């Protein structure tokens, strides 16, 4: 009997809740931005001149607790350079059916090549489609970048890239890529 007033108060709570603002998000129609640090789809970043940051070290794959990442490194050759330094990631796959979004790969990456975006719409209808390849993960070419393969900026060594001394692609790099393009068209 003594609980009766409290019970009546409960009825008041539910009744008043009807007039409070709902917390539901109308997802497909209204997309509410995630938190800035949300762990979404991965991205393989580029240096400001377009070279890839990934050096194919596989530390991300080793860090991954769900075994979702597969990396195959390869050597950069003169005239076939994808990243500054010796090595680059030739094959880079993330299996989003395994990925748990923990972000340990991000912490493991020594060159900040791998980061996460806020992109969370990762649903698809087959298993193969959910294994993202390197070209699905690579950051797009921004203005001022040129599409690798191309050589490093003249007189720069790999360390200069890591130190952030590169601000954009040089005129020589633009010319080199243009030359390769013309050569390919000629063939």
């Amino acid at each position, binding site marked *: *009997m*003594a*609980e009766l007033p409290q*019970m009546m108060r*409960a*009825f008041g*709570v*539910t*009744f008043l*809740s*009807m007039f*409070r*603002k*709902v*917390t*539901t998000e*109308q997802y497909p129609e209204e997309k509410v931005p995630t938190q800035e640090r949300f762990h979404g789809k991965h991205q393989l970043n580029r240096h400001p001149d377009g070279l890839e940051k990934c050096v194919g070290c596989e530390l991300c794959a080793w860090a991954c607790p769900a075994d979702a990442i597969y990396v195959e490194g390869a050597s950069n050759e003169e005239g076939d350079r994808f990243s500054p330094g010796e090595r680059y990631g030739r094959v880079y796959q993330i299996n989003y059916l395994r990925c748990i979004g923990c972000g340990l790969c991000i912490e493991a990456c020594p060159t900040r090549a791998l980061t996460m975006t806020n992109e969370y719409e990762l649903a698809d209808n087959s298993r193969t489609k959910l294994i993202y390849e390197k070209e699905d993960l690579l950051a797009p070419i921004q203005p001022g970048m040129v599409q690798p393969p191309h050589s490093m900026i003249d007189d720069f060594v790999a360390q200069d890239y890591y130190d952030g001394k590169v601000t954009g692609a040089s005129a020589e790099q633009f010319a080199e890529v243009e030359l390769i393009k013309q050569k390919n068209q000629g063939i």
Partner: protein
Amino acid sequence: MRILPNVELAAFGIDPWWVTLIKVVAVFVTLVLMTLLAIWGERRIVARMQMRVGPNRVGPGGSLIGLMDGVKLALKEDIIPFTVDRVVYILAPIISATTAFMTFAVIPFGPEVSFFGVITPLQLTDFPVSVLYVLAIASVGIYGIVLAGWSSGSTYALLGGLRSSAQMVSYEIAMGLSFVAVFLYAGSMSTSQIVAAQERTWYILLLLPSFLIYVISMVGETNRAPFDLPEAEGELVGGFHTEYSSLKFALFFLAEYINMVTVSALATTLFLGGWRAPFPISLIPGVNEGWIPLIWFFSKIAVFIFVFIWIRGTLPRFRYDQFMNLGWKILIPSSLAWISIVAITRGLRNSLDLPTGQTIALLGLPLIAVALAVFVADWRKANAEIQREEEVFVIKEINPFAGGHPVPPLPGQVLVEPTDVKQRILNG
């Protein structure tokens, strides 16, 4: 005792066949529509109470959700498990659904109206014991549940069916007892005459305890939250309908919602003046004539359904023993006590010919005093208990490393931070 003349009942049973047919179809369609609306209303209102939106995709405001649910259920695979008793298994949902529909035959929707020239009451039929008929049909409805549990050939379904039927049987007693006071006052068991007897005062005002007992037992009777423990979606497999799928499950679903509408309609009829307009509106002439009373009737039902939903959104589910205690140890005894009071009052009034005011003074005031005393005593006892509990709760902190082993705190104990204890041990 005042005996109402049997004039009004003469209006029943003389309809031409096509009027009866129209009424039957109308009652059927109304019930199905009410079910669809109730499903939608329930989902939306409970959602709002939980600060969600609820279904809002199909139809305006999601109002076709009930229809879509029905379509979905009908299109699902109809699984009949290998071990079932086929005949009974198929019969059970049919019994449940048909009995749910049948009750509404005696519910008065309104006064006499003209059906294409035929003057007829807005009620399928009525007879001198129609409320007893309602109780009888409700009891037959329980067979649907018992048989469903029994024929499924599964332990879960059997136990669920047993519990559901035990629940409905228990609460039917309290429900039946709460009607007795109404019968005493109306002097009739016919629904149309009970409505007629409430022309001046609704029985909710005269017989409030009966009404409260009825409202509680009607929630128990319909197997709904907080009394839905035999089905307890999140906790059990699903009670008596565990082995049912597709349309057969839909029939149980339909029956549950129709029962909800039925008990609401019965409460309206017995306690809220049936189709009569509520007080300030009833002063306007003409509101209780023709088709207008349908508005009052359906709005009263809507209020009851809202209360059903509200209760579901507010109260947590009962435990089985709590539930049975409430039914057998509180509702039935208090119902019996209340009936005795009502009977004595009526008897005194009739034999001594006392005016109402004096009867109430003679009987009511001492009773109210006793009730108040009991309530206050109970309240003080409970308060004292709470205080004692609070005293217990102030009790000292405990050493979590008693006897060298880490131990969790018992109720009424507070854990000391391990670092503090270490410090204290170090300090000696």
